[in-house]
């Protein structure tokens, strides 16, 4: 089979990419695969056969150790996640967070939720969600602030900085 990109060389790397349950099969030659920084970066791509070069071998080794990680709550392994693109329970997000954070950012372009929050949470059924502690709240705002700075959204950054300052003052924490 010829490489899907250059249509010249024989394809030696085959992989399946699953995004939201949609399967895409790809075949590439070694040259094109290198160019596309695919091998260890593509979200949820399972390398079926990587035959070439130190690069591929190294990334395979890395995959191997990552695949050992298993969610204690639902027993989903990172390998299962990679091959199906689906997580098994809410705890998976914490267990695999360091592994999937980059993927989430790549798919979503962002990794901080800014929308609606549940009115009612765990433990406290039918009771409005306990507010975050001020420390937690400040921590979250700080992350958002860093994010805004990275995105060079200075207007947003300024308003976040003000919010953090206000919280600290309210709580008597030194600014």
């Amino acid at each position, binding site marked *: 089979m010829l490489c899907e990109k250059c249509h010249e060389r024989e394809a030696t790397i085959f992989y399946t990419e699953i*995004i*939201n*349950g949609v399967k895409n099969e790809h075949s590439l030659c070694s040259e094109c695969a290198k160019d596309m920084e695919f091998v260890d970066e593509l979200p949820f791509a399972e390398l079926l056969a990587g035959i070439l070069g130190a690069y591929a071998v190294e990334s395979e080794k890395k995959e191997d150790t990552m695949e050992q990680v298993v969610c204690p*709550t*639902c*027993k*989903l392994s990172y390998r299962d996640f990679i091959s*199906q*693109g*689906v*997580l*098994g*329970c*809410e705890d998976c*997000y*914490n267990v695999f967070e360091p592994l*999937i954070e980059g*993927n*989430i950012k790549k*798919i*979503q*372009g*962002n*990794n*901080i*939720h*800014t*929308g*609606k*929050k*549940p*009115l*009612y*949470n*765990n*433990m406290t*059924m*039918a009771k409005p969600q306990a507010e*975050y502690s001020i420390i*937690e709240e400040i921590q*979250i705002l700080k*992350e958002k602030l860093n994010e805004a700075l990275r995105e060079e959204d200075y207007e947003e950054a300024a308003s976040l900085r003000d919010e953090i300052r206000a919280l600290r003052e309210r709580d008597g924490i030194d600014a």
Partner: protein
Amino acid sequence: MLKWYEETGDNEDIVISSRVRLARNLSKYPFPVRLSKEQARELIEELKAKLAGLDEEEGRSYHYLSMDSISDTDKVALTERHLVSEALITKQGPAAAMVSEDESVSILLNEEDHLRIQAFAGGMNLDKAWKLADKLDNAINKCFPYAYHEKLGYLTSFPTNVGTGLRVSFMLHLPAIAGTKRLAGIASDIGRFGVSIRGSGAGNLYQIYNQKTLGQTEQEIMQNLTTIAYQIIKQERKLRKKITQENLVGIEDTVFRSYGILKYCKTLEIEEGMNLLSDIQFGLSGGFLKFEGQGKKSVYPLMMGIQPAHLQRLAGKPLDKVKRDRCRADYIREHLPELII
């Protein structure tokens, strides 16, 4: 109560419907993919019992449909009306749906996530659909704590839905854009703004929807989609005007011929039926063609009515293709309104 597609809405010459979908999971169960059959059954029973109280909300009544206990034809018919998804009806293991009488709300139980809350409004009216879904979301949340992460937001089976869990879409009728081969260009233009487009079969019907669910508020996501929709609507209107100005006689002739075929054919394939109805819709919006009678003038209910499972339900038995095409022609003849000439 009128069905959503009988109500009038903004820009309904082009926008058929607005849809909002929220993905939610309960905190105490694993996600559907890791649920055992027993757990799945327990989950559905618990949801069903607690959600029974939704009946009283705003006088909207719900039908509870267990996927084990309805026929395959009924399942497919529900997908033809966009009330449930393909994923729900093909699901291995327990799954169910609650569908409101007016078809403006459907709640899918144990599909890809524990809950998919969907709300529809006719025309361009995301706000109305959002208010329905948001309210329902809060009412359900009152009974069940959700899987939620302080940083990542609402947690979903697929990371492509995480954050808001919100997918919003418009169904658009785009005969002029499609007819002048401009879809590919539009798809790549809107892709840069995080919006995708996909065709929903024949009849020049297309859905546009947000790709990303994390990092923007619900209002921002809806605003972004609405802005893009306005751009597409503007283009479609401009092209319609141009086509009509260039060849009014030809366009009128096409629209009336399509009406003639629909009214007098004896057998009709689905694709031809959808495309002829698309011509009629074009004629209605442009004012070349006027239906007799009161109420909203749209062929969308006919487009649903001629889908295969709808015809089989009407016949009360399975139909082979020849019989189906025959029934489709009969159905249209009977339901296509007379013209004011």
